[in-house]
């Protein structure tokens, strides 16, 4: 900060008021305030406002927050401890590699002989497919018949499970409503308290105002009586003079 102060420099005045300026500039401002009415009254006004701020005191509730962290589990033996990520990746690669090499080792080595024996293989595949298809057809028919005979049972099961779900949902909704109702009750108590306090303040203000009014009226009556007394005295004195 420079060591000069310009009249009306509000930033410097604020720094002076909060005692956060250099000692040199502080002296300069102090000297200036002795002769400058405007800056002096500015500082007084700001300081007065700061004084009023001290009236705003927050409530002092018992807080007592505590951080509680669950105790860590006792150390696991090395064979039960989880592996680090890199070790898991290496293990996965190893298993994949072993599987691949086993697969390659079991693959038939005589590829050219496939051309000569292609016809019987195709027959075998066709026969197997027809057998499979007929098996599948029979299985499907049996399942469909079973489904027809027991068609009502699953519906009843579904509806029973629906009832359970509905009950759970209703219970959750009821809990939520209850919670909201409780919260709202607390809020309404607070509002009612605020209202009552305000009413008391208003009553006290009214009483005070009425008291002032009564005091003023009393003074006025006394003054009127004194004036009447003075007039009566004056009349009495003038009558005596005659």
């Amino acid at each position, binding site marked *: 900060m420079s060591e000069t102060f310009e009249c009306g420099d509000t930033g410097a005045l604020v720094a002076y008021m909060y005692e956060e300026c250099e000692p040199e500039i502080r002296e300069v401002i102090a000297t200036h305030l002795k002769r400058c009415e405007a800056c002096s009254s500015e500082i007084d006004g700001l300081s007065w406002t700061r004084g009023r701020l001290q009236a705003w005191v*927050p409530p002092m509730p018992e807080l007592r927050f505590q951080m509680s962290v669950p105790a860590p589990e006792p150390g696991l033996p090395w064979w039960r401890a989880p592996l680090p990520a890199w070790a898991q990746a290496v293990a996965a690669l190893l298993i994949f590699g072993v599987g691949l090499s086993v697969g390659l080792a079991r693959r038939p080595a005589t590829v050219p002989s496939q051309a000569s024996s292609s016809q019987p293989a195709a027959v075998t595949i066709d026969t197997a497919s027809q057998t499979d298809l007929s098996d599948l057809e029979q299985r499907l028919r049996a399942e469909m018949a079973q489904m027809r005979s027991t068609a009502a049972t699953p519906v009843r099961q579904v509806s029973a499970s629906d009832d359970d779900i509905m009950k759970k949902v209703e219970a959750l909704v009821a809990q939520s409503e209850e919670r909201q109702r409780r919260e709202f009750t607390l809020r309404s108590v607070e509002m009612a308290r605020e209202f009552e306090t305000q009413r008391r303040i208003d009553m006290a203000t009214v009483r005070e105002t009425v008291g002032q009014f009564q005091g003023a009226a009393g003074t006025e009556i006394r003054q009127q009586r004194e004036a009447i007394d003075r007039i009566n005295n004056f009349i009495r004195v003038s009558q005596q003079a005659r």
Partner: protein
Amino acid sequence: MTRTDEELVARSRSGDVDSFNQLIVRWERPIFALAYRVLGREEDARDVCQDTFLRAYRALPGFKGQAKFSSWLYRIALNLCRDWIRRQQRAPVSQMPEDVDPAALLAETEPAESIEDLVARRELSAIVADAMRSLSEEQRTAIILKEYHGMTFQEIADMQGCPLSTVKTRLYQGLSQLRRQLERRGQGMPQLVKRT
């Protein structure tokens, strides 16, 4: 033996929960007071205060001690207050439940304070709180941090992310407006005694 904040932070970072609880005991009141003055409601301030310590504990591994622990804590609390104010602005207005009787509830929670004390305390406090609400958020926060938490201009500038000169301007303009607001509410400044 009283440990410094830095020592307690270091211990907390290495997993000592008791050290963090000592920090809570040390700072819960200032943080609560800050939240109360910014938010204006005891319950909200309590929640914000609790949330501040929870967040601080979680973020402790990332706190490298660049700033003072208290400044860091104040910053968390102010951010939470700001979020809280935004959330409250969006919250819908509720309806009074039908079976709640406020008068009956009030009778159970009657304050035990004498009427004179209550009037004096509430009147002054309410006027100042009301006047403070007329300030901008930046001015109000600057005044709260300066007047009630004794921060330096530089600390407030760091917290508000603005130049030092802006902090002085906010304080000057905030206090000036506050004075006008107090005068408007019948709390005018008494006649000044001339400086000698």
